[in-house]
């Protein structure tokens, strides 16, 4: 089984080196999609041993993720792991997150920061996520404990079925909708999430949830 890790990155020159290095110990190939960064993200990723795809315009995390996924599928990988570039995830969890797919129990594994007791999640983030989880349960019927966590694993077959049209952050909700719609088998696995000052600065703001809802609404209307 060939495993690829896809890392969408936008201005992540501070962390990308470390992320690629540690990932290479856990997967066959690391695909970094440089989403129009203005810094040295692409060069640093390449020097660290990643395959680098470049968006010459910034198109958003969802768009970058699916460019990387397309590449991984075209080059014949069986499992794709998605991983954040800001260093908040732990590569040691990869074995855990791909295991259910290797055993052919599920098609998609979603990382959950709430199933891992070690995580200390900031209060405001916890409150916003609680709302998002409630919203996801209502709209998709998926019984999940976390949403908008960038750490996931997919089988190649599942990815061929999932269609993502949201370029920005709303893609995370769309992935869950697709899992529900295409009736893919899924499970959640507890993963470590490190909330550093850096990842909190780079991460999503609470106010962005309205933007995500609006994007989802527009996406629905324009189908």
């Amino acid at each position, binding site marked *: 089984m060939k495993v690829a890790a896809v890392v969408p990155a936008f201005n992540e020159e501070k962390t990308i080196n470390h992320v690629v290095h540690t990932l290479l110990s856990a997967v066959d190939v690391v695909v970094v999609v440089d989403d129009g960064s203005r810094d040295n993200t692409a060069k640093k990723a390449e020097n660290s041993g990643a395959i680098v795809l470049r*968006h*010459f*315009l910034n*198109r*958003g995390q969802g768009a970058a993720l*699916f*460019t990387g996924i397309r590449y991984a599928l075209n080059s014949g990988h069986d499992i794709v792991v998605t991983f954040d570039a800001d260093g908040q995830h732990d590569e040691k969890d990869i074995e855990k997150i791909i295991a259910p797919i290797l055993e052919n129990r599920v098609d998609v594994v979603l990382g959950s920061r709430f199933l891992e007791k070690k995580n200390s999640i900031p209060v405001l983030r916890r409150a916003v996520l609680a709302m998002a989880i409630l919203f996801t349960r209502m709209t998709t019927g998926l019984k999940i404990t976390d949403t908008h966590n960038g750490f996931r694993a997919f089988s190649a077959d599942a990815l061929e079925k999932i269609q993502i049209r949201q*370029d920005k952050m709303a893609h995370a909700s769309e992935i869950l909708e697709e899992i529900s719609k295409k009736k893919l088998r899924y499970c959640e696995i507890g993963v470590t999430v490190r909330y550093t000052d850096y990842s909190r600065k780079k991460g999503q703001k609470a106010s962005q949830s309205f933007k995500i809802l609006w994007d989802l609404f*527009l996406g629905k209307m*324009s189908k």
Partner: protein
Amino acid sequence: MYIKFIIIAFAVFALSRAFIRYKNEEIRFREFFIWGVFWLLVVSASLYPKTTDIIAKYLGVERGADLFVYLSIIILYFIVFKVLLHLKKIDREITDVVRKIALQISDKEDNGSHEKKK
């Protein structure tokens, strides 16, 4: 009173533009006819504003001018929404292009490195 002159002058200007476009075969007669009727209605409404009150009352609005404002807002909302959806579509198309180029370049690089190995 000036507003009447401005509206009529604009209507005449718009009509002349439509006529020129019809002459140059950029629009069909049917489109020219529709624009003609529309601008004539605008002119007559500005010359005899009281007549619009009749239509307005029929629809449950006090004055013709109010009806005009209500209709304008509805139409503007509709247009803005249409534009937003169109932007979304263009956004998707841009992403498709950016993605295609990213994948093509990586393809070329892959082939290049194979050749080097050979």
